[in-house]
């Protein structure tokens, strides 16, 4: 899956609760989590929800593109593909067959910080998920032929989502400039030249290093008894692995020392403008403030910039802002598509003026309330499916070591004040340099 899109989904849906009269986040209605650590070192989370006859599993390995060495960019994601190519007792593509047989669905995605695999099945089929995941953790089998085949698939994936997509390489440019020097400089999809070079030995080594019970979080949500999960963990995941996880030395970006503007001529029909700012690493409350700020500024039709640029001045056809927050560093990027190539500077001017106005002018109660309500809606819509709820449990366990942070979201959203917004703008926009990327249509010969 495209990490960029997945990320957007996670940031859009990752927060939680409701409003004044709403019962969901009161103590009696918290999403319940039970946690334990297996003898083999796995952190296990169970969240029971008996309202439906289904259950969802999630397996998060604490490895992603941040762990890739120089010359191995794209390995973490390629490796996710290899996990479907067969293990001791399961043939190539067997995961799909067995899960389909069970009436379920499955998928996986790779992020910069972690890689996640998940299944959703009718509740009486849960054991199949544990059996499948256990086999590829303890007994993965790789062949040259399958490795080659999946390299081809991944290179086609990159071509479809990046090389051949309009503005597809913007993400690479943004990361290259904003994440320079950090562990996140190359997007997860990686570099074809590295992917082609990846050897079977390196693949096995990668598996040995990172696919280990003590590098794993498992979450199970849905119609399930705690004892059942404990039994399956004991049966399928009690074995430890020898050796150690390689030490992780996460590197931060080199801060921009001046504003930078880069113009690229490309085979696109409409000019595109991307503005990116550097932010410090993962911060729970800051991320919520950023989401609310993005609502106020750009991400809804009643936001300040949408009204100015789309509605009143008709300069822009599409605009959005979003936060990418990894463990060690974060960026926030705005994207504008506009029809008239000569309007770039006026768009930038209006953008700057509106940013400035958060600090110099007022943020009314009603406006803030509106952005918070929008945020709450997306939180609720997110947790309305087991799958997303379970992935969020993994997410908060991974970043904050506690899935119960889902239950804190409502309180935190409610607590955000106009001053928080002003401080956020001051710190991250007004007193910060930026990188601007401008795509313009190439001249047709």
């Amino acid at each position: 899956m495209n990490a960029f899109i997945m990320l957007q989904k996670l940031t859009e849906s990752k927060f939680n609760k409701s409003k004044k009269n709403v019962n969901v986040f009161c103590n009696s209605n918290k999403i319940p989590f039970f946690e334990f650590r297996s003898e083999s070192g796995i952190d296990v989370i169970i969240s029971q929800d008996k309202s439906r006859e289904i259950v969802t599993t999630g397996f998060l390995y604490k490895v992603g593109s941040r762990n890739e060495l120089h010359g191995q960019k794209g390995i973490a994601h390629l490796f996710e593909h290899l996990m479907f190519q067969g293990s001791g007792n399961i043939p190539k593509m067997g995961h799909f067959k067995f899960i389909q047989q069970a009436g379920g669905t499955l998928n996986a995605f790779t992020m910069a910080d972690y890689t996640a695999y998940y299944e959703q099945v009718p509740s009486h089929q849960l054991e199949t998920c544990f059996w499948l995941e256990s086999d590829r953790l303890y007994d993965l089998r790789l062949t040259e032929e399958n490795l080659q085949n999946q390299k081809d698939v991944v290179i086609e994936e990159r071509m479809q989502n990046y090389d051949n997509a309009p503005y597809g390489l913007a993400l690479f440019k943004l990361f290259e400039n904003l994440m320079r020097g950090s562990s996140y400089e190359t997007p997860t999809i990686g570099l074809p030249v590295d992917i082609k070079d990846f050897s079977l030995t390196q693949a096995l080594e990668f598996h040995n290093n990172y696919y280990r019970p003590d590098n794993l979080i498992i979450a199970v949500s849905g119609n399930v008894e705690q004892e059942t999960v404990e039994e399956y963990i004991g049966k399928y995941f009690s074995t430890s692995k020898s050796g150690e996880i390689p030490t992780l030395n996460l590197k931060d970006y080199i801060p921009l020392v001046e504003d930078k503007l880069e113009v690229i001529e490309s085979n696109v029909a409409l000019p595109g403008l991307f503005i990116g700012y550097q932010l410090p690493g993962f911060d729970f409350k800051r991320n919520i403030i950023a989401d609310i700020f993005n609502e106020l500024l750009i991400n809804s039709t009643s936001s300040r910039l949408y009204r100015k640029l789309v509605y009143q001045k008709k300069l822009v056809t599409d605009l959005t802002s979003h936060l990418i927050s990894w463990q060690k560093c974060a960026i926030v990027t705005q994207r504008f598509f506009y029809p008239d190539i000569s309007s770039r500077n006026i768009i930038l001017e209006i953008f700057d003026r509106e940013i400035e106005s958060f600090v110099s002018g007022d943020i009314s109660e009603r406006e803030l309330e509106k952005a918070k309500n929008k945020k709450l809606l997306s939180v609720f819509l997110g947790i309305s499916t087991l799958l997303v709820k379970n992935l969020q449990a993994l997410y908060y366990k991974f970043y904050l070591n506690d899935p119960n942070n889902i239950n804190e979201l409502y309180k935190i959203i409610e607590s955000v004040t106009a001053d928080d917004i002003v401080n956020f703008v001051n710190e991250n926009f007004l007193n910060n340099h930026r990188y601007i990327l401008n795509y313009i249509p190439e001249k047709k010969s």
Partner: protein
Amino acid sequence: MKLDNLMLDRSIPPLAGKPKDVKFPDFKEVKTDNGITILVIEDNRLPLVSSSIVFKRGKYFDSYYGEDCAGLGSIMSELITLGTPRFNGEELSERIDYLGADVNVSANFDAFIVNFVSLSKNFSELFDLVQEMILQPVFDEKEFLREKSKRLNEIIAYNDDCEYLSTLLFNKVIYDRTPYSLPLTGTNSSLRELSVTKVKQLHSDLINPGEMLISFIGDITADESIEKVEKYFSHLNRSDLKSESEKIKLLPKAGVYLTNKGGAVQASMKIGHRGIEKKSEDFLKIKFMNTILGGSFTSRINHNLREVNGFTYGARSFFIQRRYAGDFCIETEVKNDLTAPACEQVIKVLREFTSEKITEDELELTKNYIAGSFPLQLETPQSISTLLINLRLFDMEKDFYDNYVTETLKITSEEVLETARKYINPDEISYCLAGDVESISGLMEQIGEVKIIQV
């Protein structure tokens, strides 16, 4: 790996349970005196209410309003959110956002759909706004012009996308000059032809309670729901039901068709032919058959193109079934030099699939998958509502989902072959590709005579 669990033998898979026969969840269905169908699914696990107001589009295709009116329905949908007697567009969007709500109006070939959702404490206020948008849109000339020019710019951006271009090409070829051949978003020339008068005409044709369906889902009771419909929609008069159009007859259009996106390194391919309308006695069998052919990750098409050949990131097939006609399509994206080889593989798969029975393994797997995954389709009240609305919209059997699991488990491999032969004909296939014509046309000549079409 040490200390392996000696008791565990992973060579034996856990017993796969059989699919359970799941009951379709309870819902309420009422019809008002003036003919509006109301569906209610109560579910108070989250403080949200969502609702859909659906208008059957009947024969009111865009083309009904003039030769070149593609995009009319979709422009009307946009304008619905942009002004009522009480509020202008900016005020409406501010109010909707303040309620913590989301309103989405869309037009497809078969219906106009207004989907909206909010925190439950604000739902009454939201419903009041939405009914006003639907019943009393002002269709302001200035908003219309703004929307039109925005749309023209969007079309320029869409033209960057090979996938969009190949879809246009495929629809143009397969649905040759019928209403389904035109893009819903409109075209450069059609958008210039549209007028507020036509938008108003379409709107007044649509507001017919006899062709309206309203669903309420979530933290709301049936009584509250019915009360709202009565309050706002009971005054509408049922107009004489418009005569439904005939089924649309499509002709075979076998051939190789290309449209140009200069400089593309990959081509987007749509390979297929005419299909079947939505209401079909074979609906379930077609779904079953297509799941094996290209409707799942383990399907023959994906297995061949991705896992065996590494030609693509993914490939799939589907039957698009609309009210009056449908199509069968295989879609994928491949590098320029793999276009012809991929076509050859596709046709090989299709010939095998229409001449030999599927294996017992495939039969069992698919039965277990389709029947077994039924509970997953019923996870959220929203997904249940979508299933119900589709049944009603296409006048399908009321008990369709009650029999879904048992009917699926009855399907035989003979029936799958029969269905494949009935609905797939490898000799009728059209190959529709969007990509860099200069790089791919020579190769594609190996497949058949190339026709280049501007979309």
